[in-house]
């Protein structure tokens, strides 16, 4: 095991995602502590274009896989990351919590003989190894654990928990091709098509601000007040399980134990009482705002700011105030 830190950097059509910048910021600290370098692997269409930006965020070397990576294929992606890991022998491999890492991490851990720690909310160099903190039992407990090899640590990091900070001076960002030959066996599982959905709002799991509605909205149409506030804030829209089960919002919007886990900078819960399953999906948010008619709703125990009142009056008023403040 070497001292380098390998970041699997996600991007969209060559534009580096904020989550990748968060990983690179953490990777710089870890690499400095270990006396190693920050490496980035970037795969898929536009990967080459992302390389310069990854250098600016501190990647000394950027391993680019573009030709042969036109369409996502989990077996090929696994092979590429594992071959890079085998060649560079990083002390740790970092990924963001995303659909990509959910799909790949287990396979990569098995093949690269890495120890996986998912959803880390803290990660530091500790002696010859690393120390991580991660929530388990849907956030009902936090576990602290150390890794000391023999293989690398594979950590997935929760978005928005680590702050992305650009280094004072860019790193070299030297581009190297991530060569990975085609193998017909990779075709055993392929993405045939992709249907875009979800509209123009940011992705729920990545958004810096999330506005969520509960069952007290009463109908799918009433969710408009939630969408209006979300749009005023440039936020993603979420929903409680009760609202989803009642048919007011699609399952893709569900925040909670059997839905999505979000960790935004600001979470605004509107008409959500705060069932334990819902808290599981949002309790690591930095600031929590609760708007509810019931002053005893459990959500207020977690809220930094609370308004006891009717969401149908408070939320539109908030939208108006946000728009006023922007003007």
């Amino acid at each position, binding site marked *: 095991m070497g001292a380098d830190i390998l970041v699997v950097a996600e991007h969209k059509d060559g534009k580096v995602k904020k989550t990748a910048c968060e990983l690179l910021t953490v990777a710089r600290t870890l690499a400095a502590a270990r006396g190693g370098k920050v490496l980035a692997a970037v795969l898929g269409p536009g990967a080459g274009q992302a390389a310069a930006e990854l250098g600016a965020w501190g990647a000394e070397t950027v391993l680019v896989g573009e030709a042969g990576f036109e369409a996502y294929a989990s077996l090929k992606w696994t092979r590429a990351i594992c071959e890079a890991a085998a060649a560079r022998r990083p002390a740790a491999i970092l990924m963001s919590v995303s659909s990509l890492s959910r799909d790949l991490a287990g396979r990569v851990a098995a093949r690269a003989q890495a120890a996986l720690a998912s959803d880390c909310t803290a990660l530091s160099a500790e002696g010859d190894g690393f120390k991580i903190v991660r929530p388990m039992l849907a956030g009902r407990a936090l576990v602290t654990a150390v*890794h000391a090899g023999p293989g690398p640590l594979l950590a997935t990091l929760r978005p928005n928990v680590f702050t992305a900070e650009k280094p004072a001076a860019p790193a070299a960002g030297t581009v190297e091709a991530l060569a990975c030959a085609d193998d017909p066996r990779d075709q055993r599982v392929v993405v045939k*098509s992709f249907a875009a959905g979800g509209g123009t709002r940011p992705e729920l799991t990545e958004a810096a601000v999330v506005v969520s509605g509960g069952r007290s909205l009463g109908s799918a149409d009433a969710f408009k007040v939630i969408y209006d506030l979300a749009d005023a804030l440039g936020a993603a829209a979420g929903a409680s399980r009760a609202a989803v089960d009642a048919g007011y919002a699609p399952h893709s919007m569900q925040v909670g134990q059997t839905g999505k886990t979000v960790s935004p900078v600001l979470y605004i819960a509107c008409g959500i009482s705060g069932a334990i399953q819902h808290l599981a999906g949002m309790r690591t948010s930095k600031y929590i705002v609760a708007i509810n008619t019931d002053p005893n709703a459990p959500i207020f125990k977690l809220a930094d700011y609370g308004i006891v009142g009717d969401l149908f009056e408070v939320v539109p008023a908030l939208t108006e*105030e946000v728009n006023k403040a922007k003007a």
Partner: protein
Amino acid sequence: MKIAVCVKLVPSTTALIRVSADGKALDCTGVEMVMSPYDEFALEEALKARDKAAGSEILVVSVGGDGAAKNLEQAYALGVDQCVHVKAPDADAAAAARCAAAVLKTFAPDLVFCGRQAIDDDQWLFPGMLGELLDLPHVTAASSFALSADNAKAECKRRIEGGEETIEIALPALISAEKGLNDPRSPTLKGRLNAKKKTVTVKTPAELGLDAAAMAPALKVEGYAPPPPKSAGKVIAKPAKEAAAELVKLLREEAKVI
């Protein structure tokens, strides 16, 4: 077809979890234990696949402590053919995947179903690792699953950032289940009575050829803690319009988040 399902017994979603006084362990005394909810979708999908492909059999594997027998009785009540319990109360997700792989290597399944994550450790590790150990392609968090007419491949849907993928996977394959993949059936009274007559095959990791190194935890746990307590928040007790104005001011000037 040979179909395998992996299930895990976990504390129920509403259970109150306490941390021991020394912070070294989680105290689950008196906590209701249930089948991890995503595993219920996996089990149902296996039953549906068996209904479709005549002559199929289902093997269910559960790795864990003695309580795992509860899961397996539930599986028998639903009508699965065989159950194996690997007794490994301290196995982490990676060790559990090695145990399941050792059982399934001899079974040689055409299809393996598991939940996308166990809701106790929340690692999302097991399905991908098991797929790798068995050299099976996998789909993570499938929200739909349809076998082709000849049972040689399947089409799955998977929700990802910004939309939904349609994925084609060749059998043999491993599928991890998302909530809503299906509507799990309940056991019938006859099923429950039959379950009492069935026996679970019990194995130890050593009997499966797994040594102490294979079962060693991937990370050394230093301790557990309850989620950090939050200090009391600010409640704005004003009429809607004034409260909204004050909240926006606080979010801009105090929290500096908008």
